[in-house]
Structure formats: C-alpha cells, structure tokens
C-alpha cells in the first residue's frame, strides 16, 4: 500500500508538471505525523517534490493536524529548509489581534493566507483573535488555506468531530482551500464564493478506504484564475483495483459465521485487487473474538489480493453485550469510547469535560502510542513521549527543570 500511495502522489505531481500549474497549495497532512516513522516515504516524496520544484512550480503548504508538533521539529520544516516546500502562514500580533501577512506568489501575484491546524482543534483560538478586517480588505486575487472541518458542511457521521463555524473565516476570498475532511465537496455561501475540500488523494484504512472501494472519486483540484476563479477542475487519480463487500452474519453463531465468511470470500474475485471487507450483524452466540480474521486474510491473499482491509466493528454478539462502538476508523472508535465513558466520571475542571475533555484524551492517547522510530534510542523515545504528553496536558512548565 505504501507503494500505491507513493504512485498516487507521483501521479498527482506529474499531472501538475504536465499541465503545468503555476503553484501547488497543500492544505495540510501531506504526512500522517510530524516525523514519519518510515523515512523511505519521506525520501520518495522529497524526490518527487524536487522534480516539481525544478520545473519551476513552487509548493506551498500549511500544517495539518497530523503534522504539527509544538515540541519538536516537524518534517515540514525540514523540507522547507531544503527548499522543497514553503509555509504560507506569516502571523504577527498587533494590539492583541492576529494579523496574517499575505504570502504572494511571484508568478501570478496571488495572495495566499492561511491558518495551520493545531492539536485538539486549538486553531480555533487563532481564529478568535484573527484580524479579519485587514484580510477582507485585501485586494487582488486571494486564497485562504485552512485545515479544519466547518460546522455547516460536515456530514452527519462526523457530528462528534470538533469543527469551526464558517463565520470565523474571513469573507471575500476568491478561493477557500480546505483540508482535514476526507470527503470531496464544494460549497458556496454568502460572502464565501468557493469553499473546496478536495478530500484525500489516497486512503489506506477505515471509512476512507471503504469509500474509495465504493468508487468515491479521489484526486485534487486544478483552479484556473486571473483576477478571479475561471474554472475548478477535479483531476481524478485512479490507482489500483478494489473489491468491496459487506457481509451480514446476523443470527449465526461465531462458528457458523466464520464458515459463511470463508465461503463468501473464497469465491470473491480478488486477484490483483485491494480488498475491503466489512463484517456486521449480531451473532446469536459466541464471541466476536472467535472470528478468525487472520485466516480470512490468508484466504484473500492466497487468491491474489494485494491488500486486505477487514473490519468487524459493526459486529456484535447477543451473548456478550458490551459497549457498542460501530465506528470504522480507529480514531473514531477511540473518540466514541471516550465520549461514552467521560459521562461516567464526575470532574470539576472544565478542561476535562465534554468535547474539550474528549479531545484532550484523544490527543494524549495519540502522544502515548507514538511508535519508536528506528533512529531513536529508548531514552530519547521515552523522553519524547513524556514531552509530548506534558505538552498535551499543558504541564510543560510544571515539569521543566
């Protein structure tokens, strides 16, 4: 899948070179962490970006929620130092207001402004003090880049996600380049001519891969403009063949369910494909853990599947009723579990309650489960985890020497 992901990224960059575009704007989450675990991925991406830059196409970006780190240097900064990327966020505080100095693309004169994501949706605080007026008075063609969901446009299944109200964004921009939301959409509201979420280029798991397997288009937008936007063209990047199936095992016990699943998957045409399987329903008996997922994967791989994504989060057992969590993404499951349990604990501090408490819990979990990098020794790893955790809990000053 890593190869496929790289192929998709390369295809997108090559399309930009061939077009050719005047610049590329990435609204965050080029990488899935501030320092990716697999540096080979970074190396390959950097090589492709070098090719783009050498064709005279600058690549602009803001931080996404996965990339930002308050405690350590992010990969984005490394790539910026190497001249492969340019962050467009140029903040200045004047009279307790956040003023954003526009970044001007030399070739087109387009003014680029943006606000990066921070952990736990804290970028909301930047918006709260944003000097909107100066941005709204900016003349010329202007683009606002942001990496947040918006209340008004989020799908129902993302209700629990912390998002921003549209009114926090400055009005009057020609194009609003959105990130963070893994679904393509375009919107227009009074004062906001064009709000675009391109969705992910590539998806590897959870609800995202399910939607890709269900033929949800993946790609990016090419925007043509002079003093205003003339066209927005979605460039679809198709890579890989998918096979998607949903299997209902309601009424069967664990053994019967396993037999049914094996039989169904055995007869599925999966050669050379990415296979997405969703198992759901209520078992009449036995435990969910009795489902032998490794064996199901083995069957599919033996039949030629190049990648297998199986989820049984929609599966429950009558006999072993538990906290039901039917989200598909690991992060979604984590958030729902926290949401279910946070109400069971009485706390007095507002930082530990409701949405804020849940976001803090999710962020802390993310800090604590960071994998050790190959280049890290145990001491550095332990220290890094601790620093991240203290930063998340706003206890950095307390524990500093």
């Amino acid at each position, binding site marked *: 899948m890593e190869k496929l992901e790289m192929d998709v990224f390369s295809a997108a960059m090559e399309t930009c070179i061939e077009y050719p575009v005047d610049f590329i704007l990435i609204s965050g989450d080029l990488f899935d962490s501030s320092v990716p675990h697999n540096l080979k991925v970074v190396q390959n991406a950097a090589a492709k970006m070098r090719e783009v830059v050498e064709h005279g196409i600058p690549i602009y970006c803001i*931080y996404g929620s996965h990339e*930002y780190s*308050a405690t350590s240097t992010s990969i984005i900064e490394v790539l910026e130092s190497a001249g492969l990327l340019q962050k467009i*966020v140029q*903040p*200045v*505080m004047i009279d*307790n207001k*956040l003023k954003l100095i526009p970044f001007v693309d030399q070739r087109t004169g387009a003014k680029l402004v943006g*606000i*990066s*994501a*921070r952990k736990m949706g*804290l970028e909301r*605080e*930047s*918006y*709260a*003090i944003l000097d*909107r007026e100066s941005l709204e008075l900016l003349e010329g063609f202007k683009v606002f880049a942001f990496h947040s969901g918006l*209340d*008004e*446009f*989020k*799908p*129902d299944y*993302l*209700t*629990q996600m912390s998002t921003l*109200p*549209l*009114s*926090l964004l400055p009005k009057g921009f020609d194009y609003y380049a959105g990130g963070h939301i893994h679904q393509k959409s375009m*919107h227009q*509201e*009074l004062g906001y001519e064009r709000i675009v979420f391109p969705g992910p280029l590539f998806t590897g798991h959870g609800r995202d891969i399910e939607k890709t397997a269900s033929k949800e288009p993946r790609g990016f937008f090419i925007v043509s403009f002079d003093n205003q936007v003339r066209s927005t063209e979605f460039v679809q990047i198709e890579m890989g063949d998918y096979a998607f199936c949903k299997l209902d095992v309601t009424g069967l016990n664990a053994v019967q369910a396993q037999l049914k699943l094996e039989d169904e998957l055995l007869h599925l045409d999966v050669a050379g494909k990415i296979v997405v399987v969703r198992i759901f329903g209520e078992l009449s008996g036995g435990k969910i853990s009795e489902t032998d997922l490794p064996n199901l994967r083995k069957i599919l791989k033996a039949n030629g599947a190049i990648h297998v994504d199986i989820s049984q989060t929609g599966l429950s057992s009558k006999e072993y*009723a*538990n*906290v039901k969590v039917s989200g598909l993404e690991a992060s979604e499951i984590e958030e729902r579990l926290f949401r*279910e*349990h946070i*109400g*069971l604990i*009485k706390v007095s501090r*507002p930082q530990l*309650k*409701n*949405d804020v408490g849940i976001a803090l819990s999710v962020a802390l979990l993310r800090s604590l489960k960071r994998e050790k990098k190959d280049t890290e020794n145990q001491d550095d790893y332990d220290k890094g985890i601790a620093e991240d955790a203290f930063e998340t809990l706003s206890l950095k000053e307390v524990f500093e020497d």
Partner: protein
Amino acid sequence: MSHTEELDIVGQVISGKIGQIFVREKAGAEIELGNLLVAQSEDGSSLILQVHGLSYGSQIPPPVRELAAGRQLEGQAGSLSYYDPNIRNYTIAEMRAVAKISESVVSIPKTLPGFFSLVRHVNEEDFNFLNDPQNTVYLGKVRSGSKTLNVDVKLNGQELFTHHVLISATTGRGKSNLVKILLWSIVDDDDLGVLVLDPHDEYFGGRDEKLQGLSQHPSASRKVRYYSVNPTVGSSTLMINLKSVMPWHLESIFSLTQAQHEGMYEYYFKHLNDKQWIKAIVKGESLGSVQPITLNSLQRKFRTILGLDKDENGELICYNRAFSDASGEATVSEIIKNLEEGKIVIIDTSRLSDAAELLIGSLVIRDIVFKYQKYRAESGLKGKPRFEDKPVISIVLEEAPRVLASDTLEQYGDNAYSTVAREGRKFKIGLLAVTQLTSVIPPTILANLNTKIIFGNEMASERRAVINSAAQDLTEDYVTIGSLDRGEAIVSSIFTKFAIPIKVPLFDNFLKEFSSNRNLNSSEDKHAIRDADPKIIP
C-alpha cells in the same frame, strides 16, 4: 423591641380572620398594595403578611365627614379642623399571612397574628430562608410594594426546568428581559442545557453595542452557541439539511388535506434511501400515485411556509436560507450535542416564518426526547451513562399559544412542544413558555407548568387564567396583577412556600452590577490571551 424596630412599625392588627387580617396604618407609614409586612410573635417566630387591600377608616360618622368636606370645598370651613386628625382618620390595610418563619424554617401559616400585634416592614434578614447554595437560577430581587429589597430570589434549576415554567404578561412588561437575566445566571451550570427559539433575535446580542446579551458573558465562547441565517463572527450558520426533515415533523406545522398527507408520504417512501423526498416535491418530480394538483398544493405549501422553491435551472433554493439540500447535515445533531453538554443554544428565528421556526424546534425536540428516553431505559446497564448524570434540558418558547393553544391542539393533535409539557418531566426535559395569552392554553397543560412568573396584565380573562392555575391561592392578587409596573412580577411556584413578589432588574443594569462584581483579570481571561501568543501559532 429595639429602637430601630420601633421606628419601623407601620401598623397594628385590629381585626380579621384567616386570609383577611385588618391592620390600622400608623400615620405617615404609607403602606402600599403588595407590601410585605412582618408581625412578630412572642415565641420568636414571625408571620409575613402581604397587603392586598387598602381602605379608609374613621371615628367620625360619614354624614359628619361629608358635611366637613362640603364646607371645606365651598369655602365655609373657616378655621374648622378635626381634633387629633391622625387618631380619628386613618387607613386600614387588608392583608393575609403568606408565610411563617421560625428559626429560618419557612412554613405555610395556620394561625393568626396576636391580637394588636405591631407590624413592621420586612427586612433582608427575614428572607434568610431564600439562601440556598443549590439555587442558581436568578429571577430578581424581593419586592415589597414598589420597594425593592436587596434579597436575591433564586430557584433550583434542575427542579424549576423539569417542572416547566410559564412567564405571562402583556407586551412591554419585561418578559424577555427576565428570560435574558435567567439565562445569564445559568450559563456556567453544566447540568442545564437550554434551547432558545428567539423570534426577535434579542438574547444573544453582539450585532451592535446597544443590544446587550449572552454573547457578553465571560463563558460565552465555551457555553453559548448561536445559530442564525446571518451569523455574527464565531457563530454558526443556521442551515438545516432537508434530509433531517421527516413527514411527521411537518404534521403539526402544516395544515394538510387527506390527499396532501398521503401524497407527502408517497414521496417519503419513494425516497426512503436518499431522504430527498422534499427536494423531489419542490422540484416537481412526478409520481403516478400522486395527482398533479396535490403535488402543486404541496409545492405551494413548501414555498410559502418554508421558503423552498426551484430556480430557473430547476435547482432547489431556499429564500430564507435556513434549509438546504447540500449542507447542514450535522446541524440538528450538533445542536443536540451542545444541549447534552449543558450549553445554551440560541436559534435566531427572526428572519423565519413561524412555521419554519416551529419546525426547527420540533426537529430538535423530537430527537432529544428520543435520546433521553433511550438514556433512561439504558441507565444502569454496563457501559451506559447514568441517566441521573445527564443535564436537564429546557426549551424556551416565545408566543407559546402557537403550539399550545386549545384550538391548535384540537386541530393538529399533540406536537413536540405539548408532548414535552405533558410528559417531559420524567425525561428531564422541560418547557419554558412565554405568553401574553394564558387563557388559550388548556388547563391540563397549564397545570403541568409548575412555576408561573406573572407580570402585569390588564386583561381580566388572562389574570383569571393564570390565577386559576397558580401554585398558591392568588385570588387576592387579582387587582394587584393589574397594577404591576414594568419589571414587577409575582413568582408562584411549587418550589416556593408563598408567591414571592419580585422586581426584575433591567438587563443593562444587571450586567453593570455583574461586571463590577467580577474580577476581569481572572485566569480564564488570561488563558485566552496567552494562547494568542504568536510564538505558538504554527
């Protein structure tokens, strides 16, 4: 009796019976209608008496008085005057005992004050029984006649809201002002969530400096949500996806013929999967089972009542911008999530028709009632939240007769609002109904609204309606209610031992007092500024 108390003496009990005690007024005391007075007993307890009538008393027979008045008026009095005028001519105050206080415990009085008891004005110490730290919902200050005491009247929010509230008054008496103050006092309470349907856009404030509102509360960014089709910066756009609307939401909002009702459901079932049944109707999708004339009628209703139409390209548009086929999928869920987190959610419906406003309220209420029913049923099961820990939800509804009037309920049957009024209490969901016309609300619903805050009302029928359903006997207040000035009210509740007269401060003054009492350099304010530090803006 101390010297100070001697100076406070305003009269003496001279006769009467339970419910009708006569007190002779001390010369110059100027007892007022509605005054609260105290008769102290020898055992240390005190009776609080409330004045509900004033009349003249005199030792001089009426014919003699009339003759003296005539002489004076016609200029023939000369140096004629009364001997001891203050002894011979006086005022009689008629009052009833409303509370007995003994060692700070208040109870309903069952005895008369001692014969010839002296009575004095109430003071702040007499109301120590109102100091309960669990009471956080602020309503105003105790009022004695036209005077205001420095005694706060607060009630317990959990009890108050689950047992429903009625605020009744004619226009301009201060209903909205009270609601604003009440909401302000509970912003920081995480155990109370309030949905406010705001048809005059007067509760949030923030659009101009003159209109103050909840947006100025220090905790507003965290605890108050505002939805409007024209939002202020930081507020959410009121945008509801049509997929959230089901036919049963509309049944109590639209008047439909049988054919229209069936036609609506035909479209609903046809579009069960994509939920685009309203869009299909508005765009004129033809169904064999629905007559064109029925479709046209439905289209007309959606156009006039909800502002839905199609443009020249055949695409759906919404004139009031509150409904959309493309956006707002999560709006209703988001509102409910905020309520469950104990926030105040204000929906600006000033730019919407009545029907659109009531529909939006209905969407939220039905879903939250369903959720709370589920919580109650599952409470105690492993892994499920305890129902007791869920916040109480209150729905603030102005012009309540739109959905609670007898003829409306007869015509359309029960709706989400009347269901809450009748059954919401067991699910911790309450109604706060604001109205000028109490008389049109059925007695069965009025009886469930266990706290009534009564402002001035000149209409006899309205006074009778509210008195007849009050928690205390307010028969004697029939005249008083007619003479209540702006901001003056009576709180009659099952949670108060007697009907407390209050004065509600003007919101602007209330805000000034709040600001002067609050330390504006609190850590919460500093935290907000610290996070604005550009060093931590990536």
